[in-house]
């Protein structure tokens, strides 16, 4: 095809929606180093960019900045809302296939179960804006597992009436990882994953020890089926914290 024939298709190509065989013809034409079409396509990219950048709507939620900054790992003096205190991304990036990052469970162990439950409830209430993420992309970038597939974030809202959001696990995902505050993990001796019937479907004891701010608990996805789950951290048989979520397996 000639430059003249291709000219009106620059934007389609730039948007990646040009049909075959025209797309292959355009690519071959560009591969031959055509300066006219290269420049035209460059400008078409600018137009495509403009279309995206011109979209109206609300700005990003305030909390999103903190999520993005978590990518870069711990940053001194970073302030998260409501005691948001995890610093886990570096850990997850380093070792995990899929990372589920809860940002709660921060209290000291109490000798009395009911007092502990009350403290936990109060803590969760304060931190109800905290979020947990499933970070497949981050894990995929770590690139260590053939099972890594794109998956999107899980955001957990806690509170008495909060409904756990779904954790979608697509085919090929081999594991999820809970990244928990290490100071809480150190207080517990066992972690249990319970299904909706209260059956323990996975557990680990002793818990891994980490000098990092966060400690990862790797849960094989073959232990999970669609449904609700609770992960409980236990110390001397008593829960020092729980995380609920709903799994959807594809």
């Amino acid at each position, binding site marked *: 095809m000639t430059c003249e024939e291709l*000219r*009106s*298709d*620059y*934007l*389609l190509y*730039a*948007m*990646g*929606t*040009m*049909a075959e065989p025209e*797309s292959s013809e355009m690519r071959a034409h560009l591969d031959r180093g055509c300066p*006219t079409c290269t*420049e*035209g*396509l*460059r*400008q*078409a*990219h*600018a*137009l*495509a*960019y*403009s*279309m*995206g*950048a*011109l*979209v*109206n*709507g*609300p*700005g*990003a*939620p305030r909390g*999103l*900045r903190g*999520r*993005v*900054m978590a*990518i*870069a*790992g711990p*940053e001194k003096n970073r302030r998260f809302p409501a005691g948001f205190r995890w610093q886990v991304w570096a850990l997850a990036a380093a070792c995990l296939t899929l990372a589920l990052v809860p940002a709660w469970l921060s209290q000291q162990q109490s000798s009395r179960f009911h007092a502990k439950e009350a403290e936990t409830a109060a803590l969760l209430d304060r931190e109800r804006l905290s979020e947990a*993420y499933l*970070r497949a*992309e*981050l894990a995929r*970038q770590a690139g260590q597992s053939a099972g890594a597939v*794109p998956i*999107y*974030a899980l*955001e957990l809202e806690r509170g008495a009436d909060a409904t756990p*959001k779904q954790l979608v696990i*697509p085919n090929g995902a081999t594991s999820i990882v809970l990244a928990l505050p290490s100071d809480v993990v150190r207080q517990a001796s066992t972690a249990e994953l319970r299904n909706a019937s209260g059956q323990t479907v996975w557990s680990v004891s002793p818990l891994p020890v980490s000098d990092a701010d966060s400690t990862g608990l790797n849960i094989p996805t073959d232990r999970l089926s669609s449904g609700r789950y609770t992960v409980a951290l236990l110390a001397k048989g008593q829960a020092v914290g729980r995380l609920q979520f709903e799994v959807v397996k594809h």
Partner: protein
Amino acid sequence: MQCAVIIQETTPKSGEGMFPLVLGVLAREDDLVIRLQRREPQALARLYDRHGDMIYRLMLRMVRDSGIAEDLVQETFLRAWNRADAFDAERGAVGPWLLAIARNRALDYLRARGRRAENTVEFNETEHPALFVDFPAEALNFDTARQVKRALDQLPSQQRQAIELAYFEGMSQSEIAEHMGQPLGTIKTWMRRAMLQMRDDIAAGGRVNG
């Protein structure tokens, strides 16, 4: 951060011009990219502060779910963070590159959700920074933004819809034809006409403003 002001006007040769845009570059982002490549968290913060809202709006427009949009924004910056080493700031601008990454993430999501056919075109090449030379976000503060918006607004509704389905939904022309109940040839004709009209409208705007 190194800052510079570059205003470039591309003047089309007669009969050759595609989109003669007035390009404004308020701040070169070379230094920002270098700092990203050094894994400086503050560089990521600056990148987000500069482009986060724009990326979020596009994601929200594409996936229509604020939670998913947030996730995709995070995915976008994660990808940029991890790919910064491959980015050549001398050859490309960060904003368009970032937006292309974001759009690709959204299209991946739409495809995974079945809102987009599996056989549509892959977009990896659009993430190549060399294709985004001199097209930073700041350009949209100038005449370019108004010209593009005006050009889009002036398109016949069906042509505009076809363009928007391609851009925001990632539909191929065949999918657009099916979606709009029109023959594929008609869609191709509409989209080509739309491209040409936008080119002419933007060119006219550029001359007015120039």
